[in-house]
């Protein structure tokens, strides 16, 4: 099925994926504006992570279309999707333990991504400046020479966000960015997100309602692979269907 062309940054239409008959995402429509901050919430197994997997190409859709700036993503490889401008952070912090913070960031720097490019890549002033700039945003400026494995859990989450920022994506997808963080780390992360979302769109999956209220503009509630409710935080909170799902059982 061909999705229609829209003014939206991301237009997901009639998206379905099934694993052995189980529909993890079923006939889903989702539209994200430029510079939107969209938070997706929903009970476990609602299909949130699968939706991100589908958008970034980790899982192939059974049906439906995903258009990013009117380019069809379902036909593209993972790396092409990244080059198109979609960045994705994983649920568990996914960084390179054996490399330093500097090198972690450098690998995501959008240059030298082909085999030949990587062989001839030079760590010039521009690279170093950019890495330092990002490291400051993610509170890791003093740790550039530390190996990834020595970071705390929260610092690893920030580092992975930094690795996405350095790619400068137009759409940033974050899967539970504050999971396992302390209260103070959580506040810092909210501040970080508010800062970095000023010039790009962000999709965040999160369970922490306090955090959601801090950052969200629009909230989408997923349930059993379908959209249950969508709107502002207040609207969603008072939607009887949502209350039913969260409190009814």
């Amino acid at each position: 099925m061909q999705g229609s062309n829209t003014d939206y940054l991301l237009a997901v239409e009639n998206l379905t994926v099934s694993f052995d008959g189980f529909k993890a995402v079923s006939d889903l429509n989702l539209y994200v504006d430029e510079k939107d901050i969209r938070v997706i919430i929903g009970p476990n197994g609602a299909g949130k992570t699968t939706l991100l997997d589908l958008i970034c190409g980790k899982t192939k859709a059974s049906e439906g279309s995903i258009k990013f700036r009117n380019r069809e993503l379902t036909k593209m490889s993972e790396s092409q999707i990244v080059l198109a401008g979609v960045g994705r952070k994983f649920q568990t912090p996914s960084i390179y333990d054996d490399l330093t913070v500097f090198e972690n960031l450098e690998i995501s720097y959008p240059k030298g991504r082909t085999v030949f490019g990587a062989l001839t890549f030079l760590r010039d002033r521009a690279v170093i400046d950019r890495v330092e700039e990002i490291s400051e945003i993610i509170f890791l400026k003093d740790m550039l020479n530390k190996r990834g494995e020595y970071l705390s859990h929260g610092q690893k989450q920030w580092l992975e966000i930094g690795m996405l920022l350095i790619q400068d994506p137009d759409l940033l997808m974050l899967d539970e960015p504050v999971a396992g963080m302390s209260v103070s780390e959580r506040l810092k992360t909210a501040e970080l997100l508010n800062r970095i979302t000023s010039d790009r769109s962000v999709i965040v999956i999160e369970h922490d309602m306090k955090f959601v209220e801090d950052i969200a503009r629009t909230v989408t509630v997923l349930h059993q692979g379908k959209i249950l409710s969508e709107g502002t935080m207040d609207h969603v909170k008072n939607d009887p269907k949502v209350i039913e799902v969260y409190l009814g059982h």
Partner: protein
Amino acid sequence: MPNGTTFLTRSGWLNLAILAIFLLVVLPLVVDPFRLNLVGKYLTYAFVALGLVMCWGYGGILSLGQGCFFGLGGYCMAMYLKLEASSIENTKIQSTPGIPDFMDWNQITALPAFWVPFKSFPLTIIAILILPTILAFVIGAAMFKRRVGGVYFAIITQAISSILTILIVGQQGYTGGVNGITDLRTLNGWDIRSDHAHTILYFVCVILLIACLLLAQYVTCSKLGRILVAMREKEDRVRFSGYSVANFKIFIFCLAAVFAAIGGAMFTLQVGFMSPTFVGIVPSIEMVIYAAVGGRFSLFGAIYGTLLVNFAKTSFSESFPELWLFGLGALFIGVVMLFPNGLAGIYRSTLDPYVKRLLGSTPRPKSADPSVSQPAE
């Protein structure tokens, strides 16, 4: 530091100098030509070990089929030398003069088409470099594009080297069968069997090895080397940072294959024959242990590891042949269980700090050293 990490640190240059002096000066002076030829033979395996360090140590891709590429290089060279040795003059007692003797014994009356290019020396050199690359590319593209890795890749590469061995042994008329291609005498008219020739070939081998070492050093300290390490750890993260992971794996696998083939060609030149015993599963896995003993993340270690294991093998096999397999088996188990970083790991934890202090280099910030992957405390 143009590449990110320096090409060679001060102690790196020192290591290189020590290696070069040891191989180019000390050994030729103290060792008799026969033993020097033996060292030369060992060093041809070090080419394979270098490739394995890049592929397995850095990239996490364990190939159990490197014997394939070693054999391909060796056979290409052997075919050229065999054709030179089978001139019409030398083979006039055969029923078909001018073809290799084993073909004649197998009632083959004309040179098979795939042998013809090996009449030319330039084409032979090209074949030594290109054929393994093509094979590695095909295997790599088929496997890595479909995200096959780890033990599956090891099993498939092992199967491929097994297939190649069976093929060579079975097609006796075209390949010389289980005896291999033997009785090689001259290279472009130059007798390669004399002590003098052995010595010269030894130097050629060492220089090629050091060239390969430097190339490997360049690759592993470029951004590509760091991407390999990153891929080994979190393949998905690299993929979702915009890299097509398969291409990097294919590249490093091809490079390792070419190294192995160069080693194989040098083997044929120095030893004077090539046979399927160097192609199959057993030698392929044995070559992995050379890299493992040296330290799977250390290029220098690969060379020392190869030498050490082979010296041990030769001296054991001379005095207690039945003990060697016990020793080799224990080596496999010991390196994996007790010294996963091999000789290089031992060196790094004992001697290296002193060397660095002597050289006055500032302690390197804990950096892109893939070898220090200790389990998390």
